[in-house]
């Protein structure tokens, strides 16, 4: 024991610093090992499946695997000059193979996404491909004049790229050309940007509406004695606990043309029987139902902040000569900002991904981005485009989630 240090040692000769860090490490590992099962569960059944889908937004191996020869041949083609005989030959070889393996349908669908009308071209040509002889380009053109069109070949070249920007660009109404340029989608196919903008518009309106309706209610509950406010709180929590489908159904009963609201309007003489308002199956219906459904998510965070604000602040302001308005706006309101921010971001995040209410009461002009994602997943089966739209939506949501975490903190999220 001749090396002398300034550290303290415990009886077994290990430095206390080391012992402490060891025991801290142990506690860390113990805490982490408790979280680990859930982390693993979410990784396997949540994170990986979603990443798996979202990767489809820029990956599409279909053409490249099913049509290998033409993929190889098109790789060196510049996309501007007319394709060579070699490319045509590779195409015919691939078509014969695809016809034999019965994969031509998949190939045709893929190319058709880049240029509509090519589906029949592929299935038709594939049927005749077996009998084709050199020169192949002429044989193809003889079968269908579309093979003469440069656009057809450009669409095929884009389809053959395994890592493709097409879907993500399509999600924002852009198109990738064979020359490597990004251009606007044809006018009649530009729907996604409009839909994204409408989704944001609806979400902003719903957020503002819930704030406008929720703030006074939260204020009232915070100023009442606890017993009364607890009673009122139940009125807020009951809708919160009631099934979404029930509330949407309720709004159909309320807002339809022979519904309660229109009945009341006719009764009070605001409108006449044959000029009832159309309040549902359009954007109005979506807005009203979503405001109702998301209102508790606004009231609860604002209320929980207001509860902690002492009334003496406002009294002090008034005693020093502030008017009611000044006392509220300069003293009380700034203190409620954390609650307003929490509620607004939460409502906005929830609104932007809304699916059920727009699907049931939205009609044509009340559809949101989630509805078209679902449409591509279940009806058109264009999963790549669904993934691309989902990725754009997700990036948007994650930004606001980050904002929420930054300003409110995930730990402060409360339920009821």
């Amino acid at each position: 024991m001749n090396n002398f240090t300034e550290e303290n040692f415990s009886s077994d000769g290990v430095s206390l610093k080391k012992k402490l860090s060891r025991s801290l490490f142990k506690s860390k590992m113990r805490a982490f090992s408790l979280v680990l099962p859930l982390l693993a569960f979410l990784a396997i059944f949540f994170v990986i499946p979603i990443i798996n889908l979202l990767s489809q937004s820029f990956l599409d191996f279909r053409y490249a695997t099913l049509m290998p020869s033409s993929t190889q041949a098109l790789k060196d083609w510049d996309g501007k000059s007319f394709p060579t005989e070699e490319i045509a030959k590779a195409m015919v070889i691939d078509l014969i193979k695809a016809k034999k393996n019965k994969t031509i349908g998949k190939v045709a669908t893929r190319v058709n996404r880049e240029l509509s009308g090519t589906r029949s071209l592929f299935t038709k040509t594939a049927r005749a491909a077996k009998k084709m002889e050199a020169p192949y380009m002429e044989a193809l053109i003889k079968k269908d004049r579309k093979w003469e069109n440069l656009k057809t070949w450009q669409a095929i070249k884009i389809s053959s790229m395994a890592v493709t920007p097409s879907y993500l660009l399509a999600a924002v109404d852009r198109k990738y050309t064979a020359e490597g340029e990004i251009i606007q989608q044809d006018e009649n196919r530009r729907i996604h940007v409009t839909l994204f903008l409408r989704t944001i518009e609806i979400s902003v309106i719903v957020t503002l509406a819930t704030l406008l309706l929720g703030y006074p209610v939260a204020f009232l509950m915070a100023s009442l004695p606890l017993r009364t406010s607890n009673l009122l709180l139940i009125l807020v929590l009951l809708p919160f606990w009631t099934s979404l489908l029930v509330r949407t159904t309720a709004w159909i009963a309320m807002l339809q043309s022979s519904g309660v609201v229109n009945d009341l309007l006719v009764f009070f003489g605001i409108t006449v029987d044959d000029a009832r308002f159309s309040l549902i199956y359009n954007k109005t219906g979506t807005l009203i139902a979503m405001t109702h459904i998301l209102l508790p998510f606004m009231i609860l965070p604002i209320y929980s902040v207001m509860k902690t604000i002492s009334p003496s602040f406002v009294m002090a302001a008034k005693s020093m000569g502030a008017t009611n308005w000044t006392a509220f706006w300069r003293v009380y309101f700034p203190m409620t900002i954390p609650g307003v921010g929490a509620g607004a971001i939460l409502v906005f995040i929830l609104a932007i991904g809304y699916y059920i209410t727009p699907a049931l009461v939205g009609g044509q002009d009340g559809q949101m981005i989630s509805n078209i994602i679902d449409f591509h997943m279940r009806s058109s089966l264009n999963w790549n485009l669904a993934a691309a739209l989902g990725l754009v939506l997700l990036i948007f949501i994650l930004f606001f989630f980050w904002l929420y975490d930054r300003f409110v903190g995930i730990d402060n999220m409360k339920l009821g």
Partner: protein
Amino acid sequence: MKKRAIPVYASRGDVAWFYTFRFICALVFLFLIFPIIIIIPLSFNQEPYFSFTSGMLSLDPDAYSYRWYWDILKNGMADPDASNGWWADMWNNAQWIRSIKNSFIVGIFATILATVLGTIAAIGLSSSHMPYKRIIMSLLISPMIIPLVITASGLFYSFSQVGLAKNYLGLILAHAVLGTPFVIITVTATLVGFDQSLTRASASLGAGPVRTFFKIQTPLILPGVISGALFAFITSFDEVVVVLQLADVRQRTIPRQMFSGIREQISPTILAVATILVILSIILLTIVELLRRRSERLRGITPE
């Protein structure tokens, strides 16, 4: 002395504003509650309409009936008028009964899974030694934040590659994922006020970590765990977007059945189901509220 709602020195304008403000708030509460209340009388409609008939408005007893409640039982039955085997027929064939069974099967198993995993994780998360707390917490909460349609699409796309789509197991796993954030939030909220000296006291008296967990921690966090479980259950019970993609007709749950009911053949049966669900949510809300009060009492927080 009783505190007055309006102070004596209030001006006439103050008084007017006081009542206007209360009136506005009353309207907002009406907006919140009225649509939910209104479906209850509508569900007793004699006619197949979603609106009040003139008979209902004049409170004519003949305009009201239980027929849509019977329809919940009868819809889909092979022979609703048969006298023998009626119950077996109803139990096995009625569409709504099947969806109710499915909802409970999926809901209960998903809740158990979510509650066990969530509670254990929440205990780890509330330890002051937990590394990377913030990022892990964000990850664990994300099933609540990420739009359901993205979750549903991702799960459908990936689950169908491994044979988990169109069966109960896949649905249970998916709903367990969606339920975990609620368990995490409620249990960590209970643990925030947890006095760590209790576990140290228990340890100093010779109890091992397992004994401490069951004898000391469990009774104190139980209210949080139960309300978390109820949240997880109601999440599964109310979920339809994942069911739309991941389930086929055999696994239809109540909300899924309502969804197609609203889309395809809208009838007051939906209102009858909705009324039952409203009553169910009132019961659940009461339980959660009682649990919350109990938890506050246990932790020594009393309402002033």
